[in-house]
């Protein structure tokens, strides 16, 4: 059994402009010790999806359908109180993008971490402090015994994010949700944090759901990746499989549009247009309005997640995934690096 099983999750926001279908039928699983990357553009519903897991959706939003099973327990049935007592912090914890606004500026970093520990465990304040220092040391804060008494503003951006991670680890959660934790940081600082995530996973054996728009980051920290587009998962596979053998046209464009340091502008092929509104998403396949291989049926049929080839772990929601039509594009753009992968793809069919 997977640690986390999300099935057909639908989280809607009931606004005066209409119903925003931010998450509209999302399913994914996270195994124990596994790290799942949730990738997509802004507005894809990644953040809403992970906030739904934590029960952090507020009015006018609501989980309207679907099930979230954590370790066999149905989270959508739990009350706010039960979620707070049993789940948040000690089972699942979350790390946000903006550490500065997630930390309380009028308490020291230590006080905030100690509070989490005292609230969620039966440790004494003294033990909590010891544990907090230990945690700060684990996340690479220099001189933790001194710096524990400093206020968040005395920390640099990278250290604030490290403090957030320490706080998330405080009660030994089995699942950590990271919502774009390094997006606001310098690449050099990001590199350190990403390494830290690797170490933590090894040391604490936690599972992770990592939300990001950056495929490069996914490659560093995630085992598997689910690509989201306009409230749905359109493709899911182990990272290398996804990168070398993308089946969904959206995944393909995403890979081709990523700005990387080893390519030149000519090789860049951005997706045209912008994501349609989640208030009135296109019928059928939601990507069809920006898709290069769209055909008649795409507007009528909502593609289910098909298993790709023999790979049971690779699923994609495209009606034409086995046509081979869409494969010409990536072949053109990755001629130097992915030649073997492309050949393999064609023999698959």
């Amino acid at each position, binding site marked *: 059994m997977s640690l986390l099983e999300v099935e057909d999750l639908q989280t809607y926001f009931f606004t005066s402009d209409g119903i925003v279908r931010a998450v509209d039928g999302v399913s994914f699983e996270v195994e124990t010790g596994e790290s799942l990357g949730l990738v997509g553009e802004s507005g894809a519903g990644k953040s809403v999806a992970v906030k739904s897991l934590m029960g952090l959706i507020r009015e006018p939003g609501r989980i309207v359908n679907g099930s979230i099973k954590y370790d066999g327990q149905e989270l959508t049935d739990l009350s706010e109180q039960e979620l707070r007592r049993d789940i948040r912090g000690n089972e699942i914890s979350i790390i946000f993008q903006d550490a500065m606004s997630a930390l309380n500026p009028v308490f020291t970093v230590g006080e905030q971490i100690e509070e989490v520990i005292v609230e969620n465990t039966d440790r004494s304040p003294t033990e909590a402090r010891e544990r907090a220092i230990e945690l700060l040391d684990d996340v690479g804060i220099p001189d933790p015994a001194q710096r524990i008494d400093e206020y968040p503003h005395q920390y640099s951006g990278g250290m604030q994010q490290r403090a957030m991670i320490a706080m998330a680890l405080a009660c030994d959660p089995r699942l950590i949700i990271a919502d774009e934790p390094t997006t606001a940081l310098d690449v050099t600082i990001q590199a*350190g944090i990403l390494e830290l995530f690797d170490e933590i996973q090894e040391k604490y054996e936690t599972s992770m759901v990592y939300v990001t728009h950056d495929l490069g980051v996914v490659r560093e920290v995630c085992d598997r990746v689910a690509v989201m587009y306009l409230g749905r998962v359109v493709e899911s596979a182990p990272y290398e499989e996804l990168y070398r053998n993308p089946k969904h046209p959206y995944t393909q464009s995403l890979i081709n549009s990523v700005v990387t340091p080893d390519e030149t502008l000519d090789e860049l092929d951005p997706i045209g247009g912008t994501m349609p509104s989640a208030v009135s998403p296109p019928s059928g396949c939601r990507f069809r309005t920006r898709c290069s291989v769209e055909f008649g049926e795409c507007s009528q049929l909502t593609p289910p997640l098909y298993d790709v080839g023999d790979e049971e772990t690779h699923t994609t929601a495209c009606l034409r995934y086995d046509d081979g039509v869409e494969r010409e594009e990536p072949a053109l753009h990755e001629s130097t690096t992915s030649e073997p992968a492309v050949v393999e793809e064609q023999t698959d069919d």
Partner: protein
Amino acid sequence: MSTIDRTDDGGPSGTNRTDDRTGGSDREPLLEVAGLQKHFPVNSGLLSSIRFDPESGPFPFRYDQSSVKAVDGVDFELRPGETLGIVGESGCGKSTLARTILGLEEPTAGDITFDGRSTDEIPEGEFRKRTQMVFQDPQSSLNPRRKVGHIIEDPLEGTDWPRSDSSVGADTEVRTEDLSEYAVNATVDDNADLVVDPVDGVATVLLTVRPVGDPTEKRVETADDIAVDLPWGFDATVTVDETERTIDIDVSVSASKADLRRERALELLEQVGLKREYYDRHPHEFSGGQRQRINLARALSINPDLVVADEPVSGLDVSVQAQILNLMDDLQEEYGLTYLLISHDLSVVRYVADRVAVMYLGEFVEMAPTEELFTEQYHPYARALLSAVPNPDPDQPGIESVIQGNVPSASDPPRGCRFHTRCPSFILPDGFSAAGYEAYDELLGAVREQELEGSDLDAVVETYLGDIDASASADTATDAAGDGGTIPPGARSDARQAVERALEGDWTAARERLETHESVCQSATPALDPAGGTTSDVVGKTERLTACHLEVTDEGGTREP
């Protein structure tokens, strides 16, 4: 059918500017920055600068004059049509550099030359018109209460565009085909001074002259025979004088300035990939990528020569980043723009820059043509920065976090090479192991601060160098690194003597003695010199500059492949 092309070349100013921007790399630089410094006082105001200091004589206060050296001696040239990317971490001074160049900050020292003239001498209005900035946050740089059309028109209004320019001449240059020279003599009425084409400051009046009557004597009969092609908002009245055999063309503006600006804004919206209908919308109705497009349209509205873009795509989704970079590239070609692109993301710079400068703590540490820099980085900081960029391609190497910690404070930058505190390739003096040098350096630091721990000579030496193996010779020193560390015997005895001096109160002598064994990375500031076997015969073109001691000491021997 005959054609007469008549070009009104917009007067002296218009002509020059057009020529400048179409130029290649052999032209005079558009922008020259020499020795530029921008320091900010740490404390603002008289009272907050006063520090209590019991040791400063009879009056126990002193005036704190320390400053943050955000930009500390930067030199570069930017040629017309070129894109220079400046990369570095937060706090390296790259944004301050951009703001100082554009005159948003007053430089502390140094010269900025724009198009051959010092920026001090250029009238502010003209400078503003020829330089524009695109900011990182497309949300806060657009006024939420105003329509985007009006936002785009702002710079036009600010520079009073379109402006009537009385210096625009009305000389005609007539080219005739199938017509004898005297058959037509076109003159343009002086109302042409209002004719300023939105794109290049040049109006082209195209005349089609058709022969009538006797084919041997081709001439123009009526005004209807002449077709005049003008930009939107302009009218031409054509009169033909039969007896004088002349054509008079009176070009005038038929639209109000507001109409012309509106038309220009609509045109710009299209050029940046938006729709003309968006003119009446407000910024909040747009996505981040679209807002950045609006920012670009606004920057380009008055047709600047130089666009400074400060992290133009940092806040955007990856897929949108690619779109905006493509757009910037297209616009550069169309408008002949020169870009100064500030970014913390090396991949972004890779796409659009011709040359890249890597900045660290207010200084350039490496400057090279983009391709060369990405192929091989000479400065350890440039290398570290590149290795920290995540690459989604599993065939490429993953990230490496080779530098630790944050950029040191710019108010008290490290001595010598500013990167030495975080450098993975720090040069150890001969005979020292890493741990040995660390201990030695700590002693040196204490002597500088004039605060030694320990009361007598032996105690002090024990405190600082107690763990260090004294017996190791210089030959085995590097091998013995690890437990305790090693210091060459010479340095050890010098250290002892230095401590002796220090305890006698002669701190200067102590410091000088210790400094004889200091690493070159700390004792000397590396200059930004041509590097790595690149021929620099074409000045500024293929030149690679790097500010690192490694090159000097090892002739490339320590360079990793």
